[in-house]
């Protein structure tokens, strides 16, 4: 967070200056992707390019680097100037020289951005080999080690000789940053660099970028869809939509006084960390209960035993206990590898629990056979993360919706009539029944998936990261729909998410998991308002944009802060 930069005298020449940039597809007829965008980045400044999918923010960054996919996208107009070099006009050789030395880029997916067959040290060193011919091998190696130290990797000699697959996602992103900054470029383009990372790692990476930026005076063009991240790091923000710049403002002004409807709408949809007001308990009937649920992976294999190795079992989840009452929402929150999805899948009996019980409406289903399970299957239904894969692309929406009820003996006509009603309930027109999934957007498909689950008239709906793949405005709509359905039908929801703000918006109770165990479980207002466990606290502190109440266009008046002296939870008023 920084205040508006107040400048005296003539503004310094911008590092990057984009004027009227146009990019179009190379198909015929050409479809415009960027429709003439303008912005500039001053030395040392962080400009955030924010927008939903399809806004053209990534295309902008690729156009700057000259990395637009050949044969499909092409810059058709405008100028991109990097310190006087007109990037759209320079020769390919000059462009190659500018990359890494004057402008560098880090990408979203650290797991695939590194060459798997090259040691990471060599990959960083390659930049020096290509751009600084004069250095000796020793000098190069020293320079790489120094850079590894700067990105705060532990045990740098070992890391130097590591293969990418031996490093975690966060470590790989640090390698990418080291590689990008080793020649001290004037401009760093970061395209969603933390989207694939857990929040705590995200926080560290953002902090690292900030530190290095200050140290080297780098300008940063930061592309993200996450308003929370924007609020934390941006100096200025450029909001994009459908290939156009909607609004450019200093961060504080944008968050407090957005000038366009679109920005206002975007901000309103951002969930804040403030937990929802607790709802009255109306029904005490327990619909879903987990008792000492446990899931181990990797049975001790014969090979392992032959080789005399200890059985390589991992506990994906252990000693999980919770009870979900009718009409309530229980959130399971955790980072990747916390076991939250394992619990969901055990509860659904998509995987076999290795211990403990799962009671649906009082009946233990944890060890039922296929046939005995069938009558209970319909009581508990699931909504999946990826809306593009959760519907069979070859079946009409109608066929998908009636599959379940027909399996349980409902007649075709009856099921179809019910399906039509359900579509209306989730806010889609009736004629959607005869159409195919590819004719719908991601948000619409998620509505259909919810309708499909509801067709079974379940007592419990398990939503596994059901809104994580959606744009923030669509996410808000789907969350609203879930809430609405719950109120109307009284279904209980088990809501799995990695996003604390989303959990805060929809959950009555929250269970926080870490490495397969529950670390904190209680009412959302307590767990998210005054967390007790250090892990929950660290998650809260790492949540991006936790100071802002975006939908109210002002900072939150109560923010959870870690006080350095006490162990107890405190809420401070800034």
């Amino acid at each position: 967070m920084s205040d508006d930069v107040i400048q005296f005298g003539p503004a310094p020449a911008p590092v990057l200056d984009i004027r009227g940039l146009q990019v179009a597809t190379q198909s015929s007829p050409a479809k415009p992707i960027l429709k003439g965008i303008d912005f500039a980045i001053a030395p040392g400044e962080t400009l955030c390019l924010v927008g939903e999918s399809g806004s053209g923010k990534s295309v902008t960054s690729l156009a700057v680097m000259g990395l637009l996919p050949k044969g499909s996208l092409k810059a058709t107009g405008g100028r991109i100037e990097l310190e006087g070099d007109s990037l759209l006009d320079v020769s390919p050789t000059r462009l190659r020289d500018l990359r890494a030395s004057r402008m560098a880029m880090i990408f979203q997916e650290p797991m695939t951005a590194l060459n798997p067959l090259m040691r990471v040290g060599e990959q960083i060193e390659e930049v020096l080999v290509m751009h600084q011919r004069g250095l000796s091998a020793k000098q190069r190696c020293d320079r790489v080690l120094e850079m590894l130290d700067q990105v705060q990797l532990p045990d740098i000699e070992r890391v130097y000789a590591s293969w990418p697959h031996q490093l975690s996602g966060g470590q790989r992103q640090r390698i990418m940053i080291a590689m990008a900054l080793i020649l001290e470029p004037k401009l760093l383009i970061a395209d969603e660099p933390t989207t694939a990372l857990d929040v705590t790692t995200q926080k560290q990476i953002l902090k690292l970028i900030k530190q290095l930026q200050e140290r080297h005076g780098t300008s940063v063009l930061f592309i993200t869809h996450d308003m929370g991240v924007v609020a934390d790091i941006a100096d200025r923000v450029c909001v994009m939509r459908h290939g156009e710049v909607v609004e450019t403002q200093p961060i504080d002004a944008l968050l407090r006084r957005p000038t366009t409807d679109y920005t206002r709408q975007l901000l309103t949809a951002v969930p804040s960390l403030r937990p929802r007001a607790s709802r009255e308990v109306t029904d005490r009937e327990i619909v879903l209960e987990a008792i000492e649920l446990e899931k181990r992976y990797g049975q001790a294999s014969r090979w392992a035993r032959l080789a005399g190795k200890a059985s390589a079992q991992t506990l994906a989840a252990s000693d999980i206990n919770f009870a979900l009452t009718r009409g309530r929402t229980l959130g399971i929150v955790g980072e990747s590898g916390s076991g939250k999805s394992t619990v969901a899948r055990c509860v659904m009996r998509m995987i076999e629990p290795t211990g403990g019980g799962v009671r649906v409406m009082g009946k233990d289903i944890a060890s039922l056979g296929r046939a005995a399970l069938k009558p209970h299957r319909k009581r508990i239904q699931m909504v999946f993360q990826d809306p593009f894969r959760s519907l069979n692309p070859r079946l009409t929406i109608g066929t998908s919706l009636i599959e379940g009820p027909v399996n349980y003996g409902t007649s075709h006509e009856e099921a179809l009539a019910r399906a039509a009603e359900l579509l209306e309930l989730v806010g889609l027109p009736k004629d959607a029944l005869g159409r195919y999934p590819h004719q719908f957007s991601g948000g619409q498909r998620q509505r259909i998936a919810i309708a499909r689950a509801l067709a079974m008239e379940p007592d419990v709906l398990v939503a596994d990261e059901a809104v994580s793949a959606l744009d923030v405005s669509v996410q808000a709509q789907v969350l609203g729909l879930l809430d609405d359905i719950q109120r109307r039908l009284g279904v209980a929801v088990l809501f799995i998410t990695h996003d604390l703000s989303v959990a805060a918006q929809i959950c009555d109770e929250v269970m926080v998991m870490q490495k397969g165990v529950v670390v904190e479980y209680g009412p959302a207002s307590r767990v998210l308002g005054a967390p007790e466990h250090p892990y929950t606290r660290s998650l809260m502190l790492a949540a991006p944009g936790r100071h802002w109440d975006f939908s109210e266009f002002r900072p939150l008046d109560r923010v959870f802060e870690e006080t350095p002296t006490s162990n107890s939870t405190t809420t401070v008023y800034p």
Partner: protein
Amino acid sequence: MSLTSPHASPGVTATIPSRRRLRWWPRQRPGWAVIVAAVCLALIVIVAILAPWLAPHDPLEMSPANRLKPPGEAYWLGSDAYGRDLLSRVLYGARVSLIVGIGSALISVVIGLPLGILAGFFRGLDTLIMRVMDGLMAIPSVLLAIAIVSLISANLWTVMAAITIPEIPRVVRLVRSVVLSAREEPYVEAAVSLGSNLFTVMWRHLMPNTLAPLIVMSTYICASAILTEAILSFLGAGIGTETPTWGNIMAEGRTYFLIKPSLIFWPGIMLSICILSINLLGDAARDRLDPRLQKRGATQ
């Protein structure tokens, strides 16, 4: 645009389908090579069907007085060592090739598809089926066919069986790999939680995924079966010369290659055009139905 993050990509405005439904008729005009291939193949099929009416002579009628005649009025392409009309024999030869090609493709799919689905779905069966398939794959197909034909006297059916058996593992492996990845799809898991029985899951949700790759694979099998049949005939392990096939016409022509190379070239050209057309159509089908198949297609 799908260039943004997967976390942010499917928005309300995103209308680009992630997976197109099978489109049976190409939207764009196919390339000229594909059109030529389709025409050639159609002509060969017509020739095979109409051979009795098109052929100027009985393909089996020997005429010792007219041995190894050059092309002329009576014998348009000349005659072979027994005085039989080369053109008639080549026209009739199309029949065996096409029957073997289409038959092998169909049979290997009919046998391979269920085996592949079972192997992909049930872990226990998987080990068993795939061990057998690995073993079958390890036996060079022509040698296996030779062994089968040398044990059971060669006729159209044994030759077809001998050619088909080595093709089955390829179908099984393909189907299995498709099923293995498809069963991870959330919509398959959804079907299970909707209470659908195993048969429904396999038939309605898994099997359709295998169709596009299978169509492509069966064209490659068809081409390779025609080729194998010709090789078997050429090596003397195929159908007897009383049924003319392109392979055995060439086999008989080998002795006279130095004096009359056309005995090898005419059937060779027909054979090449036939296989080339099928391969080109297969490639076109692959590009249309499933571009990711490029590698699998290449491992024929």
